[in-house]
């Protein structure tokens, strides 16, 4: 049988072509890639040290040399932002990975088994969702002790519930599809159906959520840092940078505002990327 069929152009090419029409999305990816670069190899992006400053040049305003200006101790704030990316992003990544892994597993078990197991898990998830996540994270850090790793753990735990809920709803939707019924009909076992059909098809929406949660987690990590739950002071961390400049905000506003703007830009960029992933998932 030779039915003429208009094949779509190769996917990758078409997607790249589409990107040209979405400059904001391209910009968002660039921002995220640059910030990841900061976290991986900060030395490439700045010649200044984040720890040592020229005390004579304290509170220098932004200039060609010091892009973000300097702080109370004359340390270059751009360098501190670049090095801070490492602390903040590592904590964020850990948090999202933890939340994603545990959340997907819990949601999968709940959605796939149904009945009492489902009810028990989902009521527990409801309890978690009822507690404001920042409050929950603060409680966890208070119990475990102040450190960046514990902040990551705390933020991760507080976002498990969101992942579990989305995963469960996706699993419930996929399980009713004909191709799942068909797989049972072909003699595929329960675990096989779960691994080959349910998980891959349910995951796309959860991945979009993960991108969104990266932005939220950056904010949560920085908030905990701002409140002093995270890395100890000499360490550069975005939330801490904002906190350190806070006392002088009336006289030297850039010390708080510029790191704050950098933080905001990263969060907005991840949101934009998440939106595009969600659209992909719906296709």
């Amino acid at each position, binding site marked *: *049988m030779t039915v003429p*069929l208009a094949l779509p152009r190769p996917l990758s090419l078409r997607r790249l072509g589409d990107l040209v029409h979405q400059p904001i999305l391209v910009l968002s990816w660039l921002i995220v890639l640059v910030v990841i670069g900061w976290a991986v190899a900060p030395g490439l992006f700045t010649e200044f040290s984040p720890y040592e400053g020229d005390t004579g040049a304290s509170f220098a305003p932004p200039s060609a040399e010091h892009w973000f200006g300097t702080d109370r101790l004359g340390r270059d704030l751009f360098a501190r932002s670049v090095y801070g990316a490492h602390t903040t992003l590592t904590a964020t990544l850990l948090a999202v990975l933890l939340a994603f892994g545990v959340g997907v597993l819990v949601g999968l078990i709940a959605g796939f088994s149904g009945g009492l197991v489902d009810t028990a898990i989902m009521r527990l998830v409801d309890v978690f969702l009822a507690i404001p996540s920042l409050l929950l994270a603060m409680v966890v850090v208070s119990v475990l002790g102040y450190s960046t790793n514990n902040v990551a753990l705390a933020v991760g735990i507080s976002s498990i519930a969101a992942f579990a809920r989305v995963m469960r709803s996706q699993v419930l939707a996929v399980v009713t599809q004909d191709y799942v019924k068909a797989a049972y009909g072909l003699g595929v*076992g329960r675990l096989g159906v779960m691994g080959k059909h349910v998980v891959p098809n349910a995951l796309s929406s959860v991945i979009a959520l993960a991108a969104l949660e990266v932005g939220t987690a950056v904010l949560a990590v920085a908030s905990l840092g701002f409140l002093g739950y995270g890395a100890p002071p000499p360490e550069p961390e975005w939330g801490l940078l904002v906190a350190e400049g806070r006392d002088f905000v009336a006289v030297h506003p850039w010390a708080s505002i510029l790191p704050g703007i950098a933080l905001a830009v990263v969060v907005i960029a991840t949101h934009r990327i998440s939106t595009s992933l969600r659209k992909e998932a719906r296709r």
Partner: protein
Amino acid sequence: MTDTVAAATEVTSATDAQEPLLAISGLAIDYRTGRRRWNPAVRGVSLRVEPGEFVSLVGESGSGKTTLVQGALGLLPAAARIRGGSIAYSGVDVTGWNDKRMALVRGNYVGFIPQDPNTSLNPVKRIGVQVIEAVRLNRPKADYREAALESLRTAGLHDAERVFHQYPHELSGGMKQRALIAIALAGRPKIIVADEPTSALDVTVQKRILDHLVGLRAELGIGILLVTHDLGVALDRSDRILVMQRGEIVEEGPVARLSAVPTAEYTKRLLDAAPGRHTGRLAPPTAGDTPSVLTARALTKTYQLRGRQELRALDAADLVLRRGTTHAIVGESGAGKSTLAGILAGFTTADGGSVQVGGREVIGLRRKELREVRRDLQFVFQNPYTSLDPRFTVARLIAEPLHAFRVAGDRKDRVRELLAAVSLDEEFLHRLPFQLSGGQRQRVAIARALALNPEILVLDEAVSALDVSVQAQILRLLVDLQARLGLSYVFVTHDLGVVRLIADDVTVMKDGAVIETGPVERVFHSPGHDYTRQLLDSIPGVR
């Protein structure tokens, strides 16, 4: 070509006497496929409907027939644009009118009957209110209610008072479609445009609705433009038929001429494919005493509804499938045929009764034991668009049962063999379902079902979601496979035309019970039950 010229001269002569109700000329509509990229859906179509004329527009999915109608009514989706041509109602050119002006035309001048009655009514408003909405424009307020009731009665709802106060969910599909007809008639239109008004309905209901439309035309003297994929439906009732393919009219003419001497190749193919027009079979029937491979006895299934209501989906149904034959199960929606198929395939558990496959009892088996039965009995789903995992390539889809049962040997060779068996090239191996047409998908689904060399295939409306020409190809394939591999089919369908083409035996079901069963020849020639006779009379395209 000569046809178009003739048609063109006819139009000019007609304008002298009386303007056509609807005249579309050279209409071209594009769909946006990307930035600055447009894909033509309708390419320069001309069409007209004279007063009192019943015109049918026939075409398969993707031919652009619905887009054409939407364009004529000013209801195109945002992604479409009219590139050229003109639309005129009774000589008034409405091309380029904005939505506000078109709204005055719709309802008052042209009534529209949409495709799916189950989704086209507002579920939270009573029928009466929805009809009044359409009445409102051209009647004084005091008359609203009376006019709406009158409209419902004209649409064939005799108990108009009761329907007036009911919500859509309280009505059957056929009654909902009548309510939609009432809404279309409420503005006293001169022409009615109906887009596949009966495709979502059972055949007996379809017959009643279409007969009623024909009656309305005679009674009110209105013009009707019927859009349908079913050539049989069009042949039965139209004055004139237009056949559409890939956005163009390929043939146009009076019914008698078109069915007797079709000029376009495509029309011939459609006529050949329409199952209702065949009286013979695709293959000679298998006679007499072949042993049975599947025997179902007294199957019963009851569903608990909300409250304390029960629904008897299956009431002591019997079925005997003889080796190497096709046993069709026919009936309208709600007859219990899908429930029966689901029980045979082990998807649904029966409340009582027995199913024997190759001498083994299937009812009451545990999941693991049931899995063994699946080697002998496979299932093909109605909709090939949902029964294939969108992330699996064709090769992986067909190999899945081989992996599940750890079949030894070269699986890649076996997959190629199966692909060849359903007449697909090897280039399809690495395609994903979205890169396949509906017919190709169903071939893949059949190849997958054959992977384990089963004896029995249960096909649940396996060709209903496909266009007629594709449907004919798949039926041909099934018959060939049966001859070659000695397969036995349980073939669930609502289409009696298809039954006559391929089945040896037929079981007619209604409300969960078996009404009649026997060889196709006997049941079709001398039906032993009124309901069977009624079903047979409703097959479109039989003359």
